């Protein structure tokens, strides 16, 4: 782009405190600093919980908090200016424990009090999960430019309208003055859900000051040190056990670390809390959840969105209960699995058929789970096999789809018979560039080449919602399918035609967000993962030997794309369980680049087999439900259970690193 300027972010060097002074050297002509003084309207990133400024207010709450941008045309000169800017702080002690709570939720199902009173036995355990970095393909970045008054942003993003709405809010301008275009985006895993809005607001303010195009691309290290990650959690579970050795009630106390700003944490917490039952049914529940505020980098969206933490805890716990009550863990879990007609954790109903028994049968047979579990229970073999059973609620939690998102899609048929799919959903490698045209082409019975899906541009596409929450195929694809059906019925050759569809909540879905009561999701996808490992007693390293998964995602729109989601998801989930290790010491993240933050390579995974069982959902296109997040969720509990079997010790936290395995294996030395 002509006259391109570059921007570099100045970040705080302390974890908590206030800025005492900022000294900026005299700037050469054409060089600018942009900070809160330049803000035209609000200094808040519009996310669900509005507490995060995009330029520091002067109060520092985490290390590497953005303070200002240095903007100019020569990157070398920018670098010099950045080095010469001096900031003095008055430092305070940060908080890193659970003492600062920002959000508190609570819900109940049935009568947990009575269940605990009548319990034969009560079992309690506490589980911890760590940070996980999305390690998306490319770091965060945008190009912004101004045409007349209008601000256009091209970025690596998952949610064009989130960015647009945030910028409109930050500039205090009208909606037609902001345009957001998706650049080619690689696997983003949630990391490009809310965070890009922050950079977009900074840049929108900057472009209003310098009136030239600006490019801001993070360095990988800068990205890891300053952007959102998966919330660490502490989950305490208590079970009431009756005389039949069944669980009559679970009481859960959950704390997720939101970091310095709350952002999306409340929604992550809801999903974690709702997942408290795992893929089981418990008659009675008491669930308490908190978002805690610490002086670390804010945490945010990441594939699974609170569910992976909870599924790790509940799966380990179910296994633990079986052990403590001297029963076969498999039989015990089978007695508790959710069945059609059961009440969900939020007292809604599992209306659709549940294929768990079939999924479990397929996964256990193909992995030889039973015979291996028996063989590996002998000491000295150092092998283990673990099975996780899980579900994922598709789409936004609760009535989010109908109250917050209100998705709209549009099909535009041109005179020459090309059908443009106009939605705000982005393809980031998950394949909707294939699947959405495939849906339209099948319904319209036209060649797929005539169904056009381009990267969304908010000037051309309606707001079909963010590309998150495993909602794109089921919700957006469902609307696209409905629009295509209508277009087919009214198709007139050589005429431009437009069909628009809006999301309508299935009438049976009723949910009370404040009480956590009713159907939290319109539909659920289900899965079973079996992971087999060996643990080296010399180095305490885990080797993945085999992975078998079976899923119900309604109906595959494209077999290979589901295969891709399944394999990528389980690898990311297993790695969350044993390999990917990120920790912060008093707000300082220790693994700051991809040398030290280890993600798996192909050599770290084994053969993976995936089986898909059809279970069409009436509102999904061709019966499809969500598949994007589901496949990650079972990875961590399955690998942790397998390692637990291999070393015959209780695992209570992930990642199960070799260092942790060593500690466990020598806990009685």
């Amino acid at each position: 782009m002509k006259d391109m300027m570059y921007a570099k972010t100045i970040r705080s060097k302390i974890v908590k405190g206030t800025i005492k002074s900022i000294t900026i050297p005299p700037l050469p002509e054409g060089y600018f600093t942009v900070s809160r003084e330049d803000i035209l309207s609000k200094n808040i990133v519009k996310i669900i919980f509005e507490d995060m400024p995009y330029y520091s207010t002067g109060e520092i709450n985490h290390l590497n908090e953005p303070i200002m941008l240095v903007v100019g045309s020569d990157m070398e000169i920018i670098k010099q200016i950045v080095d010469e800017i001096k900031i003095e702080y008055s430092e305070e002690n940060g908080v890193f424990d659970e003492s600062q709570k920002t959000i508190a939720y609570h819900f109940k199902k049935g009568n947990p009090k009575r269940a605990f009173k009548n319990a034969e036995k009560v079992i309690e355990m506490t589980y911890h999960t760590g940070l996980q970095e999305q390690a998306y393909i490319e770091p965060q970045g945008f190009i912004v430019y101004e045409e007349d008054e209008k601000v256009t942003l091209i970025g690596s993003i998952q949610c064009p309208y989130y960015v647009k709405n945030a910028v409109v809010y930050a500039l205090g301008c009208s909606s037609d003055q902001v345009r957001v275009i998706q650049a080619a985006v690689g696997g983003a895993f949630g990391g490009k859900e809310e965070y890009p809005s922050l950079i977009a607001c900074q840049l929108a303010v900057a472009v209003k000051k310098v009136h030239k195009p600006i490019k801001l691309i993070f360095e990988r290290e800068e990205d890891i040190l300053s952007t959102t990650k998966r919330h660490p959690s502490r989950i305490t579970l208590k079970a009431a056990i009756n005389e039949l050795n069944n669980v009559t009630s679970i009481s859960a106390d959950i704390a997720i670390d939101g970091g310095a700003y709350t952002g999306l944490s409340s929604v992550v917490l809801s999903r974690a809390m709702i997942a408290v039952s795992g893929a089981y049914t418990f008659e009675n529940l008491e669930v308490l959840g908190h978002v805690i505020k610490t002086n670390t980098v804010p945490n945010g969206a990441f594939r699974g969105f609170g569910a992976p933490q909870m599924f790790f805890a509940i799966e380990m716990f179910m296994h633990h209960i079986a052990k403590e009550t001297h029963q076969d863990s498999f039989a015990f879990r089978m007695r508790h699995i959710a069945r059609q007609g059961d009440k969900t954790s939020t007292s809604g109903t599992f209306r659709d058929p549940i294929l768990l028994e079939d999924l479990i049968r397929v996964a256990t047979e193909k992995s030889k789970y039973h015979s291996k579990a028996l063989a590996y229970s002998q000491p000295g073999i150092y092998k283990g096999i673990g099975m996780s059973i899980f579900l994922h609620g598709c789409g936004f939690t609760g009535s989010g789809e109908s109250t917050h998102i209100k998705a709209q899609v549009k099909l535009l048929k041109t005179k020459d018979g090309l059908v443009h799919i106009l939605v705000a959903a982005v393809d980031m490698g998950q394949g909707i560039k294939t699947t959405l045209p495939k849906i339209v082409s099948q319904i319209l019975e036209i060649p797929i080449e005539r169904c056009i899906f381009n990267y969304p541009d908010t000037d051309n596409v309606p707001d079909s919602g963010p590309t998150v929450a495993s909602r794109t195929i089921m919700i957006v694809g469902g609307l696209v399918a409905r629009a295509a059906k209508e277009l087919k019925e009214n198709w007139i050759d050589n005429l431009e035609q437009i069909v628009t569809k809006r999301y309508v909540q299935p009438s049976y879905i009723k949910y009370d967000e404040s009480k956590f009561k009713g159907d939290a999701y319109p539909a659920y996808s289900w899965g079973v993962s079996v992971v087999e490992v060996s643990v080296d007693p010399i180095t305490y390293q885990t080797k993945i030997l085999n992975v078998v998964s079976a899923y119900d995602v309604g109906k595959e729109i494209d077999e290979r794309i589901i295969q891709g989601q399944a394999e990528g998801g389980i690898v990311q989930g297993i790695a969350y369980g044993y390999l990917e290790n990120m920790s912060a010491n008093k707000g300082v993240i220790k693994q700051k680049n991809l040398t030290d933050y280890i993600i798996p390579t192909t050599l770290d995974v084994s053969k993976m087999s995936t089986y898909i069982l059809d279970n069409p959902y009436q509102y999904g296109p061709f019966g499809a439900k969500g598949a994007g997040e589901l496949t990650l969720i079972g990875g961590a509990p399955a690998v942790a259970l397998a390692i637990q079997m291999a070393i015959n010790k209780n695992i209570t936290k992930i990642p199960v690193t070799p260092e942790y395995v060593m500690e466990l294996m020598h806990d009685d030395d």
Partner: protein
Amino acid sequence: MVTHHIPSTLEETLKLLETNLYQVMCGGTDLMVQSRSWANTVPKLVKPLVFISQLSELNFIEETPDYIEIGSVTSYETLLNSSLVPKVLKDTIIEIAAPGIRHVGTLGGNIANASPAADAVCTLIALDAIVEIMSSNSIRTEKICDFIIGVKKTTLKPNEIIRSIKIPNVEHDYANFYKVGGRKADAISKVSLCVLCNVKDNIITKFRIAFGAVGPKVASNIKTDELFVGKTIDEIKNNIDDYTKKYASLITPIDDQRSTKEYRHKVALNMIKAFIETL
């Protein structure tokens, strides 16, 4: 204006280095990472560079009765494909990085960079390799374990270059390299170990161990190694814990972003023990 040089001869290279103004760069796989800067801007180099990977005089593998001599700019990939390179060094190299890095990375760089986690250095120290160092008017040799003096520190002077690495041409009954990294490829060692051992009539005639990533430099101690020499395998196996523990004081790791000192210590000792059990 900074000028970097790509000399075509060793002589020219050494002449440039006499000015003490330059740093040499070979594969650049350590140097460029250490000099990284904002993408699309000039790397943060301490000194201008003299490139050496193109010097054919330093790209060779030769066998003499006493040594296998390897030119310092010979790439890992070339070494892997050579029949002259000792197997244990190849076993080490195959654990370094990934094919792309091995295409350009070199022993010279691994040694001069003097990281305590350098894998090839670990094996070369166990092999008692000798480094040949050159300047425009001198040539000297030093045992690699003396050449490296601390974290990122060597006895190399600004006008000097590593010319070659000489590996004593001796056979070993056992020559193993073990690397423990965060994952199976492309990982920096949390702890590594090279062990060489000869046995005659059930009696140990040579024992040599070097450990990576357990202290400020690759650790080895010939005195400790010698405690094994002359002992029968049974003697050592029957007192395996005592013998293993003889290395405990040599292993002085730290906690860092990759692992803990307890883990490194324990695993290093476990690996020695596991090796002894294979005898």
